[in-house]
C-alpha cells in the first residue's frame, strides 16, 4: 500500500468520527481505522440522554450510525482492521494492521477506553458465561431471571435500569454507601420497583463450572462475607460489571507521553510528537462524554490540517 494519507484516525467512536467529518470537509485524504464497527463505548449504550439535541430515546447505535454516515459523506473512509503496531515519529507515520500497512502524514489517536474488570477470582473464565460488560448484548438471556450490577457510576445505574426491562429483579452492588451517578439517574433507580441495592460491598469471587453458579460478596465495613447462589428453578443468574474504564493506549507506550495510561496533549490536542494528535476518552481530561469527545475530534482535525499546511 503505497498511498500516503493526509490523516489516519485510529478509532471510530464519537471523537474519531468527528475528526473524520472535519478532516473530510477540509478535503484531507482521510482514513479511519476501527477494530470491528464504528461506535466505541456508545455503540453498546442503550440511551444517550445528555448529548445536546438528542431527545426521545436516542440510542448509542442510532447516534453513532448518523455520525459515521456524516463522516463518510464528506469522504472519510472507514476500514475494519486490528492495529498491531505504530511508528509515529518522523514525517512518515506507519500503522501496521493485520491486513497490511498504512502510511500517513498525520495521525489522530482516538482509541478511547475499554471496560475495566472487577479483577476478582473467576471473572475471566466466566465472562460470557453469566458475567457481562455489555447490557444491550446480553440482557435477552436474563429475561425473568435475577441480575446483579456491580458499580455506582452513570454507566452502572443506567445499564441497571435498562436491565429492569428484562430481569425479574436487578440488584446494584456498590463499594460505597452512596451512588456516584448523576442525581436524575439515581432518582429513576430509587423509584424503580425492580431495583435493589447492596451498599459497602465488593465482589470477591465468581464461581461456576462452565456457567456462573454463585458469587462471594464482602462487606468492606464489617468484613462479613456472604454468598449469592442461582435460584434453583432459574439455574442461572447474571452479573454485569460497570466499575469504570481503562485507556486503550498500550500501542503507544514508549512513543507518546502518558499519564496513568492516558495520553497527554495540550489544548490543541497535540501530543509530544509533531503531527500526532489525540482526541476523546484516551486523553487526560476531566470529563469523558460524547460531547467532549466530538469537540476534541474537531480540534484535532483542524490542527492536523494546519500542520499539513506548514509542511
Amino acid at each position, binding site marked *: 500500500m503505497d498511498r500516503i494519507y493526509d490523516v489516519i484516525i485510529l478509532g471510530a467512536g464519537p471523537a474519531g468520527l468527528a475528526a473524520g467529518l472535519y478532516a473530510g470537509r477540509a478535503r484531507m485524504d482521510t482514513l479511519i481505522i476501527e*477494530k*470491528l*464497527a464504528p*461506535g466505541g463505548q456508545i*455503540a*453498546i449504550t442503550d440511551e444517550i440522554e445528555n448529548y445536546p439535541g438528542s431527545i426521545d430515546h436516542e440510542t448509542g*447505535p442510532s447516534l453513532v450510525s448518523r455520525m459515521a454516515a456524516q463522516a463518510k459523506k464528506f469522504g472519510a473512509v472507514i476500514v*475494519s482492521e*486490528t492495529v498491531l503496531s505504530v511508528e509515529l515519529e518522523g514525517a512518515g507515520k506507519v500503522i501496521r494492521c*493485520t491486513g497490511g500497512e498504512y502510511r500517513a502524514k498525520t495521525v489522530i489517536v482516538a482509541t478511547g477506553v475499554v471496560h475495566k474488570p472487577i479483577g476478582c477470582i473467576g471473572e475471566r473464565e466466566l*465472562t*460470557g*458465561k*453469566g*458475567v*457481562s*460488560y*455489555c447490557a*444491550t*448484548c*446480553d*440482557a*435477552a*438471556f436474563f*429475561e425473568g431471571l435475577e441480575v446483579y450490577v456491580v458499580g455506582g457510576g452513570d454507566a452502572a445505574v443506567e445499564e441497571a435500569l435498562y436491565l429492569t426491562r428484562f430481569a425479574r429483579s436487578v440488584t446494584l452492588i456498590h463499594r460505597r454507601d452512596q451512588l456516584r451517578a448523576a442525581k436524575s439517574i439515581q432518582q429513576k433507580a430509587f423509584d424503580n420497583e425492580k431495583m435493589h441495592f447492596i451498599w459497602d460491598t465488593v465482589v470477591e469471587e465468581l464461581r461456576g463450572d*462452565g*456457567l*456462573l453458579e454463585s458469587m462471594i460478596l464482602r462487606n468492606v465495613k464489617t468484613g462479613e462475607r456472604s454468598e449469592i447462589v442461582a435460584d434453583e428453578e432459574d*439455574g*442461572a443468574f*447474571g452479573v454485569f460489571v460497570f466499575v469504570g474504564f481503562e485507556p486503550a493506549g498500550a500501542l503507544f507506550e514508549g512513543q507518546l507521553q502518558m499519564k496513568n495510561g492516558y495520553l497527554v496533549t495540550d489544548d490543541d490536542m497535540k501530543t509530544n510528537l509533531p503531527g500526532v494528535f489525540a482526541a476523546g476518552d484516551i486523553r487526560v481530561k476531566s470529563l469523558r462524554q460524547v460531547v467532549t469527545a466530538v469537540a476534541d475530534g474537531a480540534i484535532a482535525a483542524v490542527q492536523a490540517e494546519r500542520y499539513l499546511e506548514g509542511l
Partner: protein
Amino acid sequence: MIDLDKENFESEVLQAEGFVLVDFYSDGCIPCQALTPHIHGFEETYGEKITFASLNITKARRLAIAQKVLGLPVVAIYSGGEKKDELVKDDATPENIEAMIRKYVS
C-alpha cells in the same frame, strides 16, 4: 447460512455430519451485527467444507443457555453433537474466527 431455531438445532447442528459453525446473536447485540459481514465472507471462502448457521438467542434463550452460551457474541464449531471450540465476546474477532475455522477445514 442456515437459520437455526429451537426446533431445528438438534437436526441441523447436533445430528449434522461434518463441522457446523454456529453464530449466536441477538437483536440488540451491536458487536454481533458488526461480525455478520465477516462471517458471510468466511462462508463464501470455507462454505464448501463447513456448514454455516446462525441462532438468534432472543427466541431460543433456554437452548442457548443449555449450550453454555450466556453472553454474546459467540461463534462456535460443532461436530459429532458436541461443541468443539468457541470464541466468546472480545475473543470473537474476525482474525480469531478465521483461525478457528482453518483449524477444522485443513
